[in-house]
């Protein structure tokens, strides 16, 4: 069966609807101009890369576009933006509502609410079309509108395409540089020009010193001070410590990570330039002697690949550094904890072995054993707490309670303890503030808060031989937090201890574990509070420890 337009027209044609073919350059041009002139609502245009220049250079056509725009016709324009038509496209952008780019357009058509025009010809670049199809058949218009929307969804914005073209105006190159003098000059120029980012992988420790001799480090210092990101990966040894010192002193924002030796150096500058230098003589003093084959390129895909390789390496090295640090800290803790645990164990083990030799001193020996067993218990609990804090598994059993309710038991317990020490003359004072005995409700872990107050009181008792220890509970005027203070008239805290007071294993105490304040600090901070210590200045002796806890509800203070 053959397709017959007349048959088709007989069956479907509605009054006034037709599909026509125009012939001749002038006829087609007129059809386009008329199309632009007669449309009142909207025109969608999809045209090849040759059309923007025609729309600008053919004056009547340009006028028709401008007139349509002035009438308020909404114009959407898809074309292929290229290096050659870029300036036309820029002009056209001011003449249409929206211009977008699509790769490799071959056909042309305009579609409005009332018509479809396709200057469909075999044409040579820059020449007007000699044939065109016009239709005002509703179904064809609907169909072409659909085609346009499909194409529109695949476009990129003209701004983006223009930027891509303009940034890539430098022709791509991929050079293999054999002349080492030229290579070092390229590297010098490249690093001098750093604007936003320099990613550098150095093959061995000496490479750091070699590029410093070329003045590259100075360029990087300058770039960093001007806000560029500079990242260096390099084996770090004594050999380059001076160069690194120079960097940390002059441009502390430059980040350096250690690595293993690699067979080449890599320089990636501003996402645009890439240089890779093979390392031929690792021990050489200067760059030119050290390097072998050099590859230098601005090829986008090459730069991007090496950038991602660098980034992967950077992330890995960062992780390694963190792991190393965590491992070092853990080992240190295990070492000290083991040492601390062995002291009471030594006392218990040793003294229990002596019981049989000293039947007349049994009581004394058992007292030493008991004392050290208590110390061991306290120490093991504290070590467990520290482990929980450091592994972030410390759980708080929070409940609402009046912090004042905790105090009587603690006070009673500690008055008894003071009686049993050689400093039994020390007074333990609790100012219960009879004038303001309102409840102070906190939402906290009751046992932990008792632990912290007890810890502070134990510390005070150990270092106070006369005078008093006082426990105060106050609320801030704004009523947002409660402050608990333990003040004593003891020996005070020396400056060298003060600075590391809340660190692990810092103690001058014979009975203490050196962990109490570290644990207290972490527990208080986990509650959203603060803890701090100060030597008393008012009466010139002793220390005050303070901690805060947020109040469960903002309390109303009595006037």
């Amino acid at each position: 069966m053959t397709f017959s337009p007349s048959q088709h027209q007989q069956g479907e044609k509605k009054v006034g609807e037709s599909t026509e073919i125009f012939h001749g350059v002038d006829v087609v041009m007129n059809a386009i101009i008329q199309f632009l002139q007669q449309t009142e609502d909207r025109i969608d245009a999809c045209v090849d890369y040759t059309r923007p220049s025609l729309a600008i250079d053919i004056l009547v056509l340009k006028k028709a576009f401008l007139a349509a725009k002035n009438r308020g016709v909404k114009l959407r324009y898809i074309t292929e933006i290229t290096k050659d038509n870029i300036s036309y496209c820029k002009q056209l952008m001011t003449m249409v509502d929206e211009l977008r780019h699509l790769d490799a357009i071959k056909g042309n058509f305009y579609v409005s609410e009332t018509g479809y025009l396709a200057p469909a010809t075999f044409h040579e670049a820059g020449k007007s079309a000699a044939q065109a199809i016009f239709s005002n058949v509703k179904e064809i218009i609907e169909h072409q509108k659909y085609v346009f929307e499909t194409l529109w969804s695949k476009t990129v914005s003209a701004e983006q395409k223009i930027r891509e073209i303009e940034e890539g105006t430098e022709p791509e190159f991929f050079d293999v540089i054999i002349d080492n003098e030229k290579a070092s000059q390229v590297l010098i120029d490249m690093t001098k020009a750093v604007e936003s980012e320099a990613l550098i992988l150095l093959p061995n420790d000496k490479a750091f010193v070699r590029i410093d001799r070329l003045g590259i480090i100075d360029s990087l210092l300058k770039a960093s001070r001007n806000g560029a990101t500079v990242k260096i990966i390099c084996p770090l040894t004594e050999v380059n410590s001076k160069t690194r010192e120079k960097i940390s002193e002059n441009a502390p924002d430059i980040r350096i990570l250690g690595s293993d030796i690699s067979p080449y150096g890599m320089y990636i500058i501003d996402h645009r330039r890439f240089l890779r230098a093979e390392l031929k003589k690792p021990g050489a003093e200067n760059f030119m002697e050290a390097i072998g084959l050099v590859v230098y390129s601005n090829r986008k895909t090459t730069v991007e690949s090496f950038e991602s390789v660098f980034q992967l390496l950077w992330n890995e090295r960062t992780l390694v550094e963190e792991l190393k640090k965590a491992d070092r800290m853990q080992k240190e803790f295990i070492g000290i904890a083991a040492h601390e645990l062995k002291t009471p164990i030594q006392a218990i083990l040793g003294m229990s072995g002596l019981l049989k030799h000293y039947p007349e001193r049994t009581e004394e020996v058992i007292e030493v054993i008991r004392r050290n067993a208590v110390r061991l218990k306290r120490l093991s609990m504290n070590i467990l707490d520290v482990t929980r804090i450091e592994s972030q598994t410390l759980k708080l059993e929070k409940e609402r309670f009046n912090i004042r309710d905790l105090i009587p038991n603690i006070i009673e317990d500690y008055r008894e303890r003071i009686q049993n020490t050689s400093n039994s003359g020390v007074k333990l004072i609790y100012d219960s503030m009879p004038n303001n005995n309102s409840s102070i409700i906190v939402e906290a872990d009751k046992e932990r808060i008792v632990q912290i107050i007890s810890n502070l009181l134990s510390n005070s008792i150990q270092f106070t031989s006369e005078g008093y220890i006082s426990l105060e509970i106050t609320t801030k005027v704004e009523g947002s937090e409660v402050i608990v203070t333990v003040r004593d008239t003891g020996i005070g805290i020396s400056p060298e201890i003060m600075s590391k007071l809340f660190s692990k294993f810092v103690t001058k105490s014979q009975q203490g574990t050196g962990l109490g304040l570290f644990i207290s600090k972490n527990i208080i901070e986990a509650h959203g509070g603060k803890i701090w210590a100060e030597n008393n200045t008012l009466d010139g002796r002793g220390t005050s420890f303070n901690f805060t806890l947020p109040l469960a509800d903002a309390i109303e203070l009595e006037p």
Partner: protein
Amino acid sequence: MNEGIKAKRIMVVDDEPDLTLFYRMSLEFHGFKVDTFNDPKKALLGFKPDYYNLVILDIKMPGMDGFELNKELQKIDGKVNVCFLTASELYYKEFRKEEYCALDKELFIRKPVEDEELIKEISKLISKIKK
């Protein structure tokens, strides 16, 4: 116990009073004469040449560590024998690396140590003493 050991005089320095008490009781029971110190600086002041046959030193002490104290003691009496006692693995390794390993004159015991073991080790060291 033989008479030779009985006559020996030992200085013990450890910052933990419960531990110096243990060393004293253990060593005295086995016939040694013992002076104990909890403060290394006081120990240095109490040290006399040709007086002690052996010095037992804790390593990790506040103010002055056992290695430092030993250096000072050696200046006063270069013949004195030393036994280091410590619970610290780190110090132990450090010790092994350095020149303190003159093992015929010096001994190293790791805490915790039991009464019998302590006496055995000390006696071994003392019996090597020439004078």
